[in-house]
């Protein structure tokens, strides 16, 4: 297959697959979470849930400069810039709006090209900055999973390639390779959104309620789990600070 047909494939069927998987997958995770919340609510013995406090908490976390601003101002600011770029540029870049208009027949407002360019550069810089923060900040490193390192870098790829494609003077072949990378990285991002931490784009409004409800499981739930596992004589809470070696022994090891 030639480069052109790979591009057609990536922009056509592959994009439709990834995009619809993102939409449906996010809907799925939303419905599953709400179902889980409902079950927790049904099974909880006391139905006193601080709905108001949870709502206030959710609203507070929506404001980017509130609590984090005081503790880690640089991280907070960079994160806001990153999010602005991630949300605005893919949706409102003039060239993307044009693609949508060709595909579905209608279009929406566009960002001015100059603003989009600056946002793109800012998002690239912010993504690299966030990655550096993960790597060099020891507290962040201790909290990070593998996907935490991959995501900022992966998100930077389509921004960088897209900027190069629209601004650098390139040979057609180099342009096509970069464009292919751009589209494939974009598709990969769409595909991964509902299955990774980026699902917070729909789960964010629920997260405070989920934590609130999680405490409402039936009384003695922990005790019963321990009994089921055969550790009825052990306490169901961790008394010491948790360290890596503190794992539950299997029955054979215990014997």
């Amino acid at each position, binding site marked *: 297959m030639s480069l052109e047909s790979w591009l057609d494939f990536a922009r056509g069927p592959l994009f439709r697959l990834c995009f*619809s*998987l993102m939409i449906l997958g996010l809907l799925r995770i939303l419905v599953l979470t709400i179902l889980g919340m409902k079950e927790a609510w049904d099974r909880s013995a006391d139905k006193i849930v601080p709905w108001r406090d949870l709502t206030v908490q959710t609203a507070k976390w929506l404001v980017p400069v509130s609590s984090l601003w005081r503790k880690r101002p640089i991280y907070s600011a960079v994160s806001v810039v990153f999010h602005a770029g991630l949300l605005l540029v893919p949706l409102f870049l003039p060239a993307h709006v044009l693609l949508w208009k060709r595909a579905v027949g209608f279009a929406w407002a566009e960002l001015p090209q100059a603003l989009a360019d600056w946002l793109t550069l800012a998002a690239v810089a912010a993504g690299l900055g966030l990655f550096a923060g993960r790597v060099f900040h020891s507290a962040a490193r201790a909290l990070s999973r593998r996907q935490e390192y991959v995501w900022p870098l992966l998100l930077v790829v389509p921004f960088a390639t897209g900027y190069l494609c629209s601004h650098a003077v390139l040979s*057609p*072949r180099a342009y096509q390779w970069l464009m292919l990378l751009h589209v494939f990285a974009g598709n990969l991002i769409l595909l991964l959104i509902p299955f990774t931490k980026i699902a917070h784009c729909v789960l964010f409004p629920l997260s405070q309620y989920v934590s609130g409800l999680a405490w409402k499981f039936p009384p003695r739930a922990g005790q019963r789990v321990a009994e089921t596992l055969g550790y009825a004589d052990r306490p169901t809470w961790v008394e010491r600070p948790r360290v890596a070696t503190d794992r539950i022994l299997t029955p054979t090891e215990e014997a």
Partner: protein
Amino acid sequence: MARVRRLKFFLWALTGLAAAVGVFRFLFGLGAATNLSDAYPWGVWIGFDVMSGVALAAGGFIVTATVYIFKLERFHVIVRPAVLTAFLGYVAVAVGLLFDLGLPWNIWHMLIYWNPHSPLFEVGWCVMLYLTVLTLEFLPVPAEEISRLASVRRFLVKIRLPLVIAGIGLSTLHQSSLGSLFLIMPEYLHPLWYSPILPVLFLVSAIGLGLAMVIFESHTTAYFYYRKPETHLMASLAAAARWVLVVYLALRFADLAWRGQLHHLAGAGWQVWWFWFELAVMAFVPIAIFSLPQTRRNQTWQWAGALFGVAGVVLNRVNVGGLMHQGRGDRLYWPSWTEITISAGIVSAAVLAFLFFIEHFRVWQERPVDPEADPRKLPELSAVGATWLGVPVVANRTVYSLAFVGAAALGFALIHPQPASSRGIVPVPVHNARGADVLWIDGNLDGYGVAFPHADHEKREGGKKSCARCHHMNLPRDKASPCGVCHRDMYAPSDAFRHDWHAGPRGAALPCVKCHTPGRPRTKETAKTCDQCHKDLVAEGAVIKVKQYQAPSYTEAMHRLCVGCHVERAASRHKPDMPRCAWCHKERRRFVDAPDLDFRGLRAPGSEVVLPPLPESKSKR
């Protein structure tokens, strides 16, 4: 429960795929989503979903009649599954019909706007009424679990006998009236399938199929739920099914013989083989299996015989419903993958509903219990991701919803939106005219062309300097480029600008910014126009001025050019026939196999066309 779990995963995926295709069908219509056409208006949705679905549901009225009318109480254990099968079968029929009919919000019209002359009117009413009866027959089962519905349940049990009788009446009416639909097409349906007693044949085969379906369903669910199979009970059903099928065979051949149509069996053609194949699957094999005592009492053989019977009747319905309609164009109908997907998805959804009912209500004497759901069971890690997905309810919905969503996304990826907007325009590439002094203009090479006296035209219009009259644009550094270079499609407009010639690696491989303004979206608005680089594109003295990149189709370009000029000349030279079709379209022969075509004299012997004189008022356009 591992078997059921795998089955459900598969069914949810199929349902998801069908859901995506269903969205596509309702957005873009039948033409885009199916291979149906005016010649083949009824396809697999009618033949399989509706006609076979109704036949598959026949088990409901047969078993209720056996138990409640004939009082054969030993069959009582299979009443509930049979009624449930019938109920879900009819729901599937209604849903399948909605996909075929479209405009689902108009479905109530049948209640208000009566057309009592139409068999479809009768079919529609039967579906509605029988679906109601089946709902009322099955409702006591879920009502057992809901204490609020106790009085409803008592009432329904009280009126069960009238319901059963109504069900039998409606069902027999409906099974046979599906056959009577085809009585109006004796000349379309193949004579081996057409019969004036089609209603009777449909009814009898539906009874046979209903019995086979009960056997098939019982053994299949027994396999999936690790149940003890009801082999003994099924053996008596198999024995009954055998006699029904024998009666069916006798009726079918007696009808053919009585109407003198048996000679078709001696004829050639794949239809005869297909006829024997259908009868073998539908009758010969099941009769053989159900007749031998060893095989009749064996669980696996019973299942195989029932499967053959079910497949055969479905084949019969598909044949009568569309495949054996002949004399409608030379192209055979074959369902598109979207049609098959929708049908499969409807069946999957019905099976999922069936499994839901047997797991949650007392359809069987005891409900199947998932050993995984035992609270004392130790949690097991799932194969993927080595995590515990939760109790079976949670784990199942996590996995099944993933199957559904993934398959639906795959469906959206597979469906190409292009056919929705442009099916019907088949690209027909243009071939340039061939010849020298006389050119044979036949862009699509179908043999119907125009012999164009090129040299004569050149001489008459003033020699070399007249080229630009027709050759209004040329390729760079070319003179008199052929028409088909830009007018590339016979019937559709084509793009005269070749992007690949400019930017492609095999073309000039120019960087984008050579034409496009840097830093702006690369559209034709931000690009240079052709003449900013190519100074010699437009021929000197060209009459036709090009203002856009879209070149009209080859036929349109040729006609506009020639006819326009001929209209002018017709007036000045007093030749009123010049702008008429036959002035140029004289030769109706293939260029290659017409060696005797007189190209010097331009007119093949005997091809003169006499035209009525053109009215004066219309001679000028």
